[in-house]
């Protein structure tokens, strides 16, 4: 019985990695899968509370400000679109860095890693501005100045979930930027040239894309729907 299975499946007959990926990269995939469940639990909890409530604040009224715009400007969705595109572009530069790494092109890896780090810092700055602005309007954990879309009194569920989930995502972006800076320093120190491969850049890239992926969901759940 056992010999029969060994004969039919070549991948599992030993002598080579059945998944054809390096150990660290495989474990990064499993970590990201578990992280997907963490974020999923957050967002589903938010959805459950929203479904169990009669009214909910209108995101187009809450998120209608823009930096340096005059007070009281009505620009819904504009600032968050900027944030979304910043994250998409930084994801693209990360792909290009990974590709350059596979081609052992150190100069391009350095260039694209720097662009990715700049994108990450730009996103974090945008988020810092938005949090600060909302805090000035009176929104924080346990405080919600925004009434429901139908004009009824709102609870603090909206702000609690908003700050918890975007904060958790922002923390992921922050760790991603730190990891990318470490990768950039290691590249500059020729660590990967000595190893003969840029697999660490690929693993950092997986994490960075995951951060972008989570933003796709957070952006939709809080700002659009």
């Amino acid at each position: 019985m056992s010999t029969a299975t060994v004969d039919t499946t070549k991948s599992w007959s030993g002598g080579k990695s059945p998944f054809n990926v390096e150990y660290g990269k495989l474990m990064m995939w499993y970590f990201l899968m578990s992280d997907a469940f963490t974020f999923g639990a957050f967002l589903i909890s938010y959805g459950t509370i929203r479904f169990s409530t009669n009214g909910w604040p209108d995101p187009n009224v809450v998120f209608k400000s823009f930096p340096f715009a005059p007070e009281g400007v009505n620009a819904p969705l504009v600032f968050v679109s900027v944030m979304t595109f910043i994250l998409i572009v930084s994801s693209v530069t990360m792909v290009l860095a990974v590709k350059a790494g596979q081609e052992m092109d150190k100069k391009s890896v350095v260039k694209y890693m720097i662009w990715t780090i700049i994108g990450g810092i730009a996103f974090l700055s945008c988020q810092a501005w938005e949090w600060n602005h909302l805090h000035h309007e009176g929104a924080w954990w346990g405080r919600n100045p925004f009434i429901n879309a139908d004009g009824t009194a709102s609870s603090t569920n909206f702000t609690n979930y908003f700050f918890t989930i975007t904060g958790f995502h922002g923390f992921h972006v922050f760790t991603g930027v730190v990891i990318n800076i470490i990768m950039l320093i290691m590249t500059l120190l020729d660590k990967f040239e000595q190893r003969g491969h840029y697999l660490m850049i690929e693993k950092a890239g997986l994490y960075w894309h995951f951060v972008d992926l989570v933003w796709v969901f957070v952006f939709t759940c809080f700002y659009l729907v």
Partner: protein
Amino acid sequence: MSHTAHHEENHGTGEIKKVTIILSVLTIVELILGFWMIGITSEALRLAIKGTIIILMLAKAFYIVAYFMHLKHELKNLIMTVVVPLSLFVWFIGAFLIDGNSFKNLRNTYDPYFKERSTIKVEKKAEGHGGSHAAGAAHGTADTTAHTKDTAAVENNH
């Protein structure tokens, strides 16, 4: 299944460009739908737009995972160990959202206070915040002021 072997070198800048354009277009369509939804009051149409946005969101997620994270180019065994556990989300999302909705319906049926509170309009307090002022104005429906007394009564109960 034999062609799932190593072909990591086949996808280059062309694929990256293509996926970047797809992601940008999907995001722009999402935003157009979002802007369009601002003026719409029909509950059915709003629900349809929200559904469309969620489908576009899932499409974006697919392109990021499949191409930017290269999952599509991995061996099928690996794809399965990552994707199959994620199918738990079907139960996770369905069960919890239905539960939330059911809780709302039960409370609306059996908890008169909950039901009453969620029908009383709020008179926007004249505070110094410019932003919240505009928020009140945007929601200046005809009967905002009609229930001022009721609101005061509710707030006394707290």
